[in-house]
């Protein structure tokens, strides 16, 4: 794809705007870790919510959705649409509790709710595990996806694309390091408006290229009739489909959303979503931020992607790599005006940078607040903690580069590691309401979930990529994990009264319901 001087000017302007935002917030971010990681807890709902949804919209997300639609139709999106109930629980039950808790990170919550060494272990382990390996693997995936997009759109060879990617990564790390969360939030807003505007524009041009909406549906129906594989326009999967058999659909709709922990979709909220709730101006702003995020995430974003995906099926029916159909539409001069290519590439950069900025700042918050300040230097100046936060942000960027270059060999480990979250959702949801839950409840849930899942996957060779296997792994893991943590809870003493009282005072009336 050839770019003109005007295209490069647009792209340069986009980067300059992000840099200007970073420089603008530089002084404020240096004030304290509360400013660097939580924007002084003074963020309005619309900014915090937009930042959440901007983060979940990575450069490769439209391509992934295109692949889902091509393989399994619109209904293929139920792989992520099923999580809406979890999001709504977070909005209406947990968002205000998180804001009220007054913590800086969600892993810090362990030492608000529990006492002693087990609580400190939970906090430290989660901070390091999530902040460094899990976080850097996520950044690595986003990096690899952007690498492919750069190669395809700009026609760069692998080496040049890698340098371009590293430049973008370093640029994002720079403004995140100097401007902290304020820089991330405000650039997220700009980036979300830009990328959402461009995916809507691309959808409009793509639909126009196939002759309008009616022509689009007729041509997709004709393709489906020819293939005999069922309608890709159906909103719901048929119960006998190979990719989503009834048992798997039941598990997705009835179990996964509350039982399974996954980065970005934590039962009861967590991760960068919780970070933005903590940064909100008030409980009310925290609630509305999360509500806006879920509305934008599930109801606003998908249709432009889906329309472009359907149009790409019609326009390029013989394309082997269906995901690349999305990029093909924007590179096709018969579909997308070449004059808009510069701003479209800026939109892809925006999608990449919004995710990276958040991951770097959020990961650094764990390492500094829950390891360095908690276990290494308990009483130091805010100035020192901010400097360490900036150094950790840069360090995470460097580790993520190493992970990106070795991701192929790491990916299998991720697949096994991530199952440690399957079945732990119940304890995460109930710990706010049931006084009897203690730190050992959480430790045992994590340990049993990991042991059961690994046994099923490694010893019995069940493959979580196969829909039925996934359903059985989930059901067995949830049942055994729940039984185990309940048994451990009753076999171990409750938390001391003083800890429970402090928790109730911190979290107010609703969190304490159910506590004796």
């Amino acid at each position, binding site marked *: 794809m050839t770019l003109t001087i005007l295209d490069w000017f647009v792209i340069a302007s986009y980067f300059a705007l992000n840099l200007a935002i970073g420089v603008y917030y530089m002084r404020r971010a240096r004030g304290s870790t509360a400013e660097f990681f939580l924007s002084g807890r003074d963020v309005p709902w619309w900014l915090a919510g937009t930042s959440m949804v901007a983060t979940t919209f990575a450069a490769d997300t439209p391509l992934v959705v295109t692949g889902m639609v091509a393989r399994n139709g*619109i209904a293929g999106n139920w792989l992520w*649409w099923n999580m*809406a*109930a979890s*999001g*709504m*629980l977070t*909005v*209406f*039950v947990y968002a*205000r509790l998180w804001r*009220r*808790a*007054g913590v800086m990170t969600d892993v810090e919550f362990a030492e*608000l709710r529990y006492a002693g060494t087990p609580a400190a272990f939970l906090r430290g382990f989660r901070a390091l595990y999530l902040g460094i390996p899990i976080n850097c693997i996520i950044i690595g995936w986003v990096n690899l996806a952007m690498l492919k997009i750069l190669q395809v759109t700009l026609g760069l060879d692998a080496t040049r694309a890698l340098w371009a990617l590293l430049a973008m990564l370093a640029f994002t790390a720079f403004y995140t390091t100097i401007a902290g969360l304020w820089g991330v939030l405000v650039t997220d807003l700009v980036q979300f408006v830009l990328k959402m505007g461009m995916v809507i524009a691309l959808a409009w041009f793509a639909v126009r290229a196939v002759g309008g*909406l009616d022509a*689009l*549906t007729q041509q997709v129906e004709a393709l489906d009739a020819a293939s005999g594989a069922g309608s890709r*326009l159906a*909103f719901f999967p048929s119960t006998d489909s190979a990719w989503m058999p009834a048992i798997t659909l039941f598990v997705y709709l009835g179990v996964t959303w509350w039982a399974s922990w996954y980065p970005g979709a934590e039962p009861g909220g967590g991760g960068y979503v919780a970070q933005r709730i903590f940064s909100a101006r*008030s*409980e*009310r702003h925290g*609630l509305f931020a999360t*509500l806006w995020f*879920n*509305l934008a995430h*599930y*109801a606003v974003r*998908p*249709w432009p992607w*889906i*329309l472009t995906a359907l149009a790409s099926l019609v326009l390029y029916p013989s394309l082997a790599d269906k995901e690349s159909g999305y990029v093909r539409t924007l590179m096709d001069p018969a579909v997308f005006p070449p004059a808009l290519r510069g701003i479209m590439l800026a939109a892809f950069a925006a999608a990449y940078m919004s995710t990276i900025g958040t991951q770097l700042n959020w990961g650094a918050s764990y390492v500094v607040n829950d390891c360095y300040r908690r276990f290494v230097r308990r009483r130091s100046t805010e100035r020192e903690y901010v400097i360490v936060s900036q150094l950790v942000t840069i360090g995470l960027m460097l580790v993520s580069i190493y992970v990106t270059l070795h991701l192929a060999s790491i990916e299998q480990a991720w697949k096994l590691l991530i199952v440690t979250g399957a079945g732990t959702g119940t304890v995460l949801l109930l710990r706010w*309401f049931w*006084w009897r839950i203690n730190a050992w409840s959480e430790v045992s849930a994590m340990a049993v979930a990991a042991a059961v899942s690994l046994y099923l996957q490694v010893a019995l060779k069940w493959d979580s990529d196969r829909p039925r296997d996934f359903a059985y792994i989930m059901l067995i893991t949830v049942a055994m994990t729940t039984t185990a943590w309940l048994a451990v809870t009753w076999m171990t003493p409750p938390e001391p*009264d003083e800890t*429970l*009282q*402090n928790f*109730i*005072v*911190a979290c*107010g*009336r*609703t969190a*304490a*319901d*159910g*506590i*004796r």
Partner: protein
Amino acid sequence: VRRAVGLPPGSASLGRELFNALLGCVLIYGALFGVGEILLRSVTLGLALLAIAAGAAIMIARNLEPEIMPQSAASNLPTS
């Protein structure tokens, strides 16, 4: 424990919050499939789904109203 820290017995707000979460699902899926119907299938059904989503939003707003008042007792609690 609640008495020890000077709080009244547990409130009944959890039920209302869970009901709001249910209404939130109606709002999200109503909006999602309402827009999808209008774009790809039936405008009438799409508008009906959007109306249901709007109804859910109104009910949520009514349920939330007493809870999001800035001077609520909960907002005045100390935050340790």
